[in-house]
C-alpha cells in the first residue's frame, strides 16, 4: 500500500513537472518578445525575488530602468553588493578612479556683509523667498533659508550665519543641493586637489551695483587676474579655473586671494580653513 502511494505520488509529481516545463518551454519560444539583451543579462544577475525593495515593480522593471534610464546599479537590497558589481559589469559603469565631484557654494556673504537685507515674513524656504524682492539686496547671493540643507540626505551642508556651507568630510557629491538651490549658486566642481580656490560670489553686475548690495561681492576689479593665472574674468566677475588647478599653483592662487579687495576669494574643500 505504501509503495503504491509513493509510486503514485512520484508519478504525479513527475507528470506535473513534465507538463509544466513543456508548456512553459513551448510558451517561452512561442511568446518570445525581443528585448535588449543587456536587460536579460541584468535580469539574470538580479536575484529575481521580485520583492520591490529597489523601488521598482519587481526585478524586470528594475532591469529595464538600469539599462534604459541609467538607474543606479546598487539598488537591490536582496542581492547586495555582489549583485551591484555584477550589474555594474554588464552596464560597463565605471565605479572607482574618478576625481571627486563636489558642490561649491558661490557666495561668501554672511549676514553682516549683506546690505539691504529686510525682515522677511513669508514661507521660510529659499524657493519661496526667491519670489519676493528685497529679502536681501543682492539678487544673486545665498538666501540662507536652507533648501539645500533639507535636500541633503547626508547632513553635509549647513547654514552658518545666513550662508550655506558644505561639510566636505560628509559630502558624497550626490548633487541634491545643486538642484535645490533656486538661485543656482551651487555648482558641481571636480576637486583635483583636496582644497581648491574659488570665487565666492555670483553677482554678475558691475562693481558699482555690487557695492550697493554687498560688502563681499566681486566688483570685477581684475586684481586677482593680474597676479595669478588661476583666475580669469568672465565679463564682470572673476572665476577660478578649477579644472586646471593643481596643488603646485597654490602659491599663485594665494597671491590672487590676498589681492582681492573684497575678500571674496577663498579656498574650499577638505582641510580648508
Amino acid at each position, binding site marked *: 500500500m505504501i509503495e503504491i502511494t509513493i509510486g503514485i505520488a512520484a508519478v504525479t509529481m513527475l507528470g506535473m513537472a513534465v507538463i509544466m516545463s513543456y508548456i512553459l518551454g513551448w510558451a517561452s519560444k512561442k511568446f518570445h518578445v525581443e528585448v535588449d539583451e543587456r536587460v536579460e543579462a541584468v535580469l539574470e544577475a538580479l536575484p529575481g525575488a521580485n520583492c520591490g525593495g529597489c523601488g521598482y515593480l519587481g526585478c524586470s522593471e528594475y532591469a529595464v530602468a538600469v539599462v534604459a534610464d541609467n538607474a543606479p546599479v546598487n539598488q537591490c537590497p536582496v542581492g547586495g553588493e555582489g549583485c551591484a558589481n555584477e550589474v555594474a559589469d554588464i552596464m560597463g559603469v565605471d565605479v572607482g578612479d574618478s576625481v571627486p565631484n563636489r558642490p561649491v557654494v558661490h557666495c561668501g556673504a554672511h549676514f553682516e556683509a549683506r546690505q539691504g537685507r529686510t525682515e522677511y*515674513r513669508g514661507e521660510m524656504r529659499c524657493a*519661496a523667498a526667491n519670489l*519676493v*524682492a*528685497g529679502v536681501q539686496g543682492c539678487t544673486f547671493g545665498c538666501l540662507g533659508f536652507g533648501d539645500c540643507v533639507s535636500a541633503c540626505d547626508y547632513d553635509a551642508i549647513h547654514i552658518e550665519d545666513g550662508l550655506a556651507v558644505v561639510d566636505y568630510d560628509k559630502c558624497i557629491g550626490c548633487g541634491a543641493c545643486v538642484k535645490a538651490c533656486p538661485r543656482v549658486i551651487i555648482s558641481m566642481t571636480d576637486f583635483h586637489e583636496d582644497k581648491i580656490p574659488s570665487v565666492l560670489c555670483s553677482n554678475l*553686475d558691475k562693481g558699482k551695483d555690487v557695492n550697493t548690495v554687498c560688502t563681499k561681492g566681486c566688483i570685477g576689479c581684475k586684481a586677482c587676474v593680474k597676479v595669478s593665472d588661476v583666475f580669469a574674468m568672465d565679463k564682470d566677475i572673476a572665476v577660478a579655473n578649477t579644472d586646471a588647478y593643481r596643488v603646485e599653483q597654490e602659491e599663485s592662487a594665494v597671491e590672487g586671494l590676498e589681492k582681492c579687495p573684497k575678500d571674496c576669494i577663498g579656498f574650499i574643500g577638505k582641510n580648508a580653513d
Partner: protein
Amino acid sequence: MGFFGSKEEFPGKGSFPHGIHPPDNKFYSAGAAVEVLPNPDKVVLPLLQHIGAPCEPVVKPKQVVACGEMVGKGQAFVSAALHSPVAGKVKKNTVVTLANGRHLPAIEIKTDGDQVDPKDLWKEMTATDWSFSTVSDYAPDEISKLIHAAGIVGLGGAAFPTHVKVMPSDKQLIDTLLVNGCECEPYLTCDYRLMKEAPYAIVAGALLAGRAVSAKEIFICVEDNKPEAIEALERATQDTVVKVAVVETKYPQGSEKQLVKAVLDLEVPLGGLPSAVGVAMSNVGTMAAVARGVMKKGPLTHRVVSVTGGGIANPKNLFVPIGITMGELIDYCGGLTQDAARIIAGGPMMGFAFSDLNTPVTKGTSGITILTHAEAARGEETSCVRCGRCVDACPMNLVPTRLAMAARYQNPELARQYNINACFECGSCTYVCPANIKLVQLIRTGKAQVAATMKK
C-alpha cells in the same frame, strides 16, 4: 447689485462663483484729486516693463534725448517701445531690481533742457473735448500700429502689450470689448480717479480699441462701490455705443476671466485668453493712453499712481512720469508714518512688497500701498486643518491647500493633477486661510517645480 446698471444691459449675473469680500479701504485716497508731480531730477527706465521680450536700447550713454523720444525699441512682436518722459542726457547703463524681483538693465536719464510741463499732459487727458466722431477716420490696423508706436501696455498691472490685444485678426473674431474699471484691489484708487476725472479720454480710447478689434459691443465695467465714477462714465458715454456695466463689489472682480464670467456669463477656457470666447479686455487707464496715443500721437510716458495706505502721511493720487523712483513719490506724499510696515508696489492682494526705495515706477505700477503694522498683521502660521475655506474662496474653483502642500512637499505630479497652472495668484485663499499659510507663495514655488519637471 448695481445702482444704475439694470440687468438687461448685459447677459452675466454681475458676479462670479466664489471670491471674497475684503474691506476695500479706498477712503484713504479716493477723495484726493489727481495731482501732477513736477519733473524729477532723473528717471530710470528698465528695459522690460511689459510681458514679452525686453526692448533694445536705441540710445547711447551721453546722448541727449527729447521729451517723449523713443529710447527703447520693442523688436519682437510681443514687446513694447519705451519713451523718455523727460528731456535730458542718457547716463551710463545701469541695473535695477523691480518690485517683482526682476533684475534688469535700465536706461538712466538725467533731466536737462526743455521740458514739457506734465500739467499740460494731464489737462489734455481730463479734457471733455475728445472727439468721438473722428474715431471712424482711423483704419483698424492703423489704430493698432499707432498703439504699438506709443508703447502702450496694459496699465492694470499685467502690462501685456496692447497692440497685440487690439490687433485685428481673421482667426479670432472679437464681439465684445470689456473695459476693466473694476479696480477690485483694496486701497487702490488710481483707476477710480481716472474714471472720475478723465471719462472722455477713456470712452474715446474704448471706441478706438473697439474699432480696432471690430467689437460689436463695448462695456466699461465698474464695481458698484464707485458711484461717482459710474456717474461720470454714464455722462461721457451718452450718445455712444459704449455701455457702463455695473458689477458686484467683490474680489477678484477685476480679473479677466472672472469679469468675463460676471458680465458676459462666458467661461474663458483653461489656459486660454478672453479672445478665445470673442472678448477683448483692457484697463481704463490703457484706454485713456490709447486715446492719447492714437489721437494726439503721444507716447505712454506718464500714468496715474495711487500712493495710499495707513503708512503714508498724505495719501494722494499722482500723475507721474514713468521711471521716477518710488522714494520720490513717498517723499512727495509726506513720507512714511512711524508705524509703516510694508511698502507694496500695487495693491495689497497681488502687489509686490519691496524695500529698496530706488525702485522705479513702471508702466504697470498702479499704486504704492503702504501698510501699517496693524494692517499687515498676520497670525502665526499653524497647521492646515483642511477646513476648505480656501476651496470656497478660490475664484478658479481650485483646491489651494492641496496645491500648496504639494508644493511644500515637492510633489509636482500632484500639483499638476490639481491644475496648479489654472491659479492666477489672486490671493483669495491666503486672505481667508485661518491657519495663515502662505498658500499663494507656496503655489508659486509649486508652479516653478511643475515647470521644471515639464522641461525634463
